[in-house]
């Protein structure tokens, strides 16, 4: 069995009175593409936020190469100490980026008043490469732009791109950080079928370049086609894990997506679950 690069152990996250994650765990192995699915509000994005230090976990551990990212206590505390500890967690968030965990954002966050090339240069300047010179970073940025197919718009303002190009820019910014682990948060939402094919191809090529990928996606066709393994979350906890074909036939998964009554109907009437889950893209679009 290949080495585990990134793992979450019994992670929970509470916002005020709302528990967004309860006891979520997963393992991401070297060089694999791990799909993460689940109905809206399952806690998928929150999980990525806890990994990248945007919202540190309330309890539980996140291990990168076996080392706890939040070594000792997690970042949460009360009262006066909250100010101090929030400075510390911010410190962790940028270190996590420098260690080699990169992410994209579901709601894209381009640096709008920078050109596309400059956006990607930021990733190359910081990230794991942590280059000192802007020209070296710009060279790396050109390489990445070529890789994702954005060279032709390198000089354009980032806010002048199409949706598909904005999603690719998100990916390019993360790749320029030369990460070991890439967390993709719905990079295919809003794309048309041709663009989705292209994006799937891109994700596979990223993996071939030696990056371990965890991908959140609602486009079932894409995630089933691209993932080596899939793990499913519902209501803040993981409910199933396995090969794409196994997961899709898991009664718990069908129930999470369709509710108990319809899940029973599906099982009783022997409907192919893939056909049902395949409806997702339209629902989501």
């Amino acid at each position: 069995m290949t080495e585990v690069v990134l793992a979450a152990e019994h992670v929970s996250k509470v916002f005020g009175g709302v528990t967004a994650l309860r006891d979520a765990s997963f393992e991401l192995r070297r060089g694999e593409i791990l799909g993460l699915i689940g109905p809206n509000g399952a806690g998928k994005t929150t999980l990525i936020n806890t990994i990248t230090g945007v919202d540190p976990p309330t309890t539980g551990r996140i291990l990168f190469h076996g080392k706890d990212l939040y070594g000792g206590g997690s970042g949460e505390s009360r009262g006066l100490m909250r100010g101090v500890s929030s400075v510390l967690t911010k410190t962790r968030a940028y270190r996590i980026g420098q260690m080699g965990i990169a992410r994209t954002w579901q709601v894209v966050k381009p640096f709008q008043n920078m050109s596309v090339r400059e956006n990607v240069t930021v990733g190359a300047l910081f990230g794991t490469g942590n280059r000192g010179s802007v020209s070296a970073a710009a060279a790396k940025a050109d390489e990445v732009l070529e890789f994702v197919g954005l060279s032709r718009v390198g000089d354009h303002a980032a806010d002048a791109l199409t949706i598909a190009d904005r999603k690719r820019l998100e990916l390019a910014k993360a790749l320029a950080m030369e990460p070991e682990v890439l967390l993709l948060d719905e990079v295919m939402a809003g794309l048309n079928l041709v663009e989705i094919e292209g994006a799937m191809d891109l994700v596979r090529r990223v993996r071939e370049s030696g990056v371990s990928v965890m991908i959140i996606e609602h486009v079932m066709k894409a995630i089933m086609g691209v993932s080596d393994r899939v793990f499913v979350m519902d209501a803040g906890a993981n409910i199933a894990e396995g090969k794409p074909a196994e997961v899709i036939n898991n009664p718990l998964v069908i129930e999470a997506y369709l509710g108990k009554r319809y899940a029973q109907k599906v099982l009783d009437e022997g409907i192919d679950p893939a056909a049902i889950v395949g409806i997702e893209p339209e629902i989501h679009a």
Partner: protein
Amino acid sequence: MADTAEPLVRRSSEQESPAGPGAKKRRTTATIVDRVLLICALVSLPIMVLVPLHATGYWMNLLTELFILSILATAWNIIGGYTGYAAFGNVAFFGGGAYVTAELMTRGAWSFIPAMLAGGLAMLLYGAIVGLPVLRLRGHYFAIATLGVAIMTRELTNNLAIFGASQPINLPLKNDPNLFYYVALGLLVVSIIVTYLIARSKLGFGLVAIRENEDAALVMGINTTMYKVVAFALNALLCGLAGGLYAYWHSTIDPPTVFDLTTNVRLIIMAVLGGIGTPLGPVIGAALLTFIQETLWKNFTNLHAVLFGAAIVVVVLLMPRGIVYLVRQKFAWRIFVRNLRQYRV
């Protein structure tokens, strides 16, 4: 994937000739304008150096004051323009630098230049200490917290005996307009060079990334806290140096003048008027605003402040992004109309 979607580019004026893959040379209107501005600045520098040979006392005073204001606007541009944090309390560092310099020159009998440098360094430190907690705030909250810092600093100076309480401090008198003129010009040139260096360096990329989206910048590995504090402290350093120069130039300082809160707003208006986040914008804005103020003062002595307020309103409405951005576009009167519509509710 590269062949799928045609790029739908909304702006056309700046990107008429799309650069091919790997094209390094970009000649957009923006870069040409920036280059022209830079050349203008380089040409005007020798002229500025020669001014004292011919100028009257009025012009020497006016230009020295303009240089000091330009330094302040340029300093603010680092934190407010590049980093996107609207600091409203820079007079804390201006006044602080003035007071440290004054104290060192009167009680410590230091000579001017070392005292000014010490004032600047003291403000660098003060800026870093204050910045660490205050830079955690964003938006309006940051703006008012920095204003609070300025008022607190003024009140402490006003009340503490070591700063002469509210009594004015008299510095050694020095009647040498050329000295002040050249020191001010030198500091201004240094601040502009610093800005250029920042804009082209890793620091500058980090600061602009923070301005554009702080969360995204953070997870991309930028130590946002440190970068913001560095920007804020550099801003404080330049303000402190300008304050030290001002103290010796005016030879008498007291809290109401060096901690004048309207100076805060004046220097921000200068930066906005010129174009924030550009190296030369604040200087252009300072020159233009000083020109407007002088003209109003000469022609409408009684009403000049009223008209000044009206001028600010008009300028903000018609060019919220400043002159540099205005000339970067191909100039046309309809740009004003577009600006007016751009942010309408």
